[in-house]
């Protein structure tokens, strides 16, 4: 199996584990039970049933997942297993806003709305890299570490050729992260004083 396939499957498996842990509210179980459930879930996700594992089925639908999705999914898994949120609300809000902006810029045009194709910029554009640098430096100076982490992970994965894609956009953002960001922001608008999708992370705010 190629390194691209292994990394892609690991990412999709991680998303599956995060989804499961969140849905069943894993952190309400005793600590040992959490580890046992995650271990069993990991086996179920990664061990092939017939030709394919559940992770491979997910990958068939989603493709390889961006650094944004992986960081959010990884943080969700850790939060459910340890009961300790890693991501602060301010950090998450900034990331979600940037993801929503990126999605609004990327997807309508990439789906053929106009002659302009922002996705093509991700194959190698000085302007695109410079814009990304400015955004990341602004995030660093504002101590928005989650944004910096996502961009650095995405850039290093892109440079290493971690996935089949040679386009930087695919390492930065994907539809999962975009939908999640939009839902999280909308939930925050509708329920400004209540617990939203980031119930755990608010504890660390």
């Amino acid at each position, binding site marked *: 199996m190629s390194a691209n396939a292994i990394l892609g499957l690991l990412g999709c498996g991680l998303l599956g584990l995060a989804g499961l842990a969140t849905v069943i509210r894993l952190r309400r179980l005793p600590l040992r039970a959490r580890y046992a459930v995650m271990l069993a879930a990991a086996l179920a996700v990664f061990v092939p049933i017939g030709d394919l594992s559940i992770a491979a089925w997910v990958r068939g*639908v989603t493709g390889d997942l961006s650094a944004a999705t992986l960081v959010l999914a990884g943080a969700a898994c850790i939060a459910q297993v340890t009961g300790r949120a890693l991501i602060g609300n301010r950090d998450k809000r900034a990331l979600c806003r940037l993801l929503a902006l990126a999605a609004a810029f990327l997807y309508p045009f990439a789906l053929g709305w106009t002659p302009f194709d922002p996705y093509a910029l991700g194959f190698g554009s000085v302007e695109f890299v410079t814009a990304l640098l400015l955004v990341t430096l602004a995030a660093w100076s504002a101590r928005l570490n989650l944004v910096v982490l996502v961009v650095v992970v995405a850039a290093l994965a892109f440079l290493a050729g971690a996935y089949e894609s040679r386009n930087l956009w695919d390492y930065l953002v994907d539809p999962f992260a975009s939908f999640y960001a939009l839902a999280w922001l909308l939930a925050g608008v509708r329920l400004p004083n209540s617990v939203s999708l980031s119930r755990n992370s608010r504890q660390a705010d």
Partner: protein
Amino acid sequence: MTARGQRWASLVALALAFAGLYARVLTAPPLGGFAPPQTAARAESRAAPRYEAQLLPNSTAASVHSATAAEISGGRLRAFWYGGSREGASDVAIYTSVYSLRQKDWSPERAVVTREFVQRHLRRSVRKLGNPVAGRDSKGRLCLYFVSVSVGGWAGSAVNLMVSEDEGETWSPPRRLIASPFFNISTLVKGAPLLFSDGGVGLPVYHELIGKFGELLRLDAEGHAIGKTRLSWGQSSLQPVIVPRSEKEAVGFMRYSGDPPNRILIVRSGDGGVHWSRPEKTALPNPNAAIASVLLSDGALLLALNNAEEDREDLSLALSTDFGNTWRTARRLEGGSGPAPAPVPEYSYPWVMQDRDGDVHVLYTWGRSRIKHVRFNRAWLEGRP
């Protein structure tokens, strides 16, 4: 590590990451223009007209579609098409057969790509297979691009690549091409790939999710997508075919699926495929059907098309001697008082190519049940007695 230490460490990581990104972008080699077209032998001016037609073998599939072919060593053509119980069924496989230019016969077909084979090697679920497209890369290897779908209809397609070092006898495992940011879905192929002078491959692709539009995907020598250029946009153009005639100049044609009048679309590039003109309607009809084109060795442009606005019952050949500005219908391959009709009179998805000796080959779907191959020379095309 202290908070201050973490902060500076993150800045160092950021600096390293962007140094790498800038190094990648700034040291990328300049894009090459189109590679010179392969030159076939010019037809003898006094050659007698020659035309032959036959159906390709099909021992198993109730439905076949979307033929493609490439000339291979030993004076042969290798064709591919997909077939199964019906279009979109899970038992659809991609078949291949070899034609001897000398003996003029096709070998029994064999399945070269099945859904299970693709799924196993891609490590992804695959629901069905679609259009194959054959071509060569700059190393001379035979490449097979084909469509697969994991979820939904053809709008959920992605393109895969297999490479053969032995003219199609054995193949590398399939690899997914990444060409779209939206789950990498809705990228399909139909037109022939072309070569760039920098060793890359240009693969005409199209999208069918929400919008219908064409693009020219640029692949590196190893077959990774490293760039693309939009040929059209909106919701009414698909299945581009690109025909270069010099390093800078090319013309492209697209199937049209918009409001009447139903016409083939044309685009042009004068800078090696970096920029393309706005799509315009030609005078040639198009019943929302695939087309094919090739630059003949004498410089004429040949187009295979359904010569009607509403159906696929007429398959014809059109010639242009001014690189697509004006056209004349040269021959009708199917329809009218032509050969005996298929049980289902639909003739579609043509593939056209010229072999090294100058003969032209057209393969197309014949009544959805067989692939038909016609072979002719320039004299027949001109209608000379």
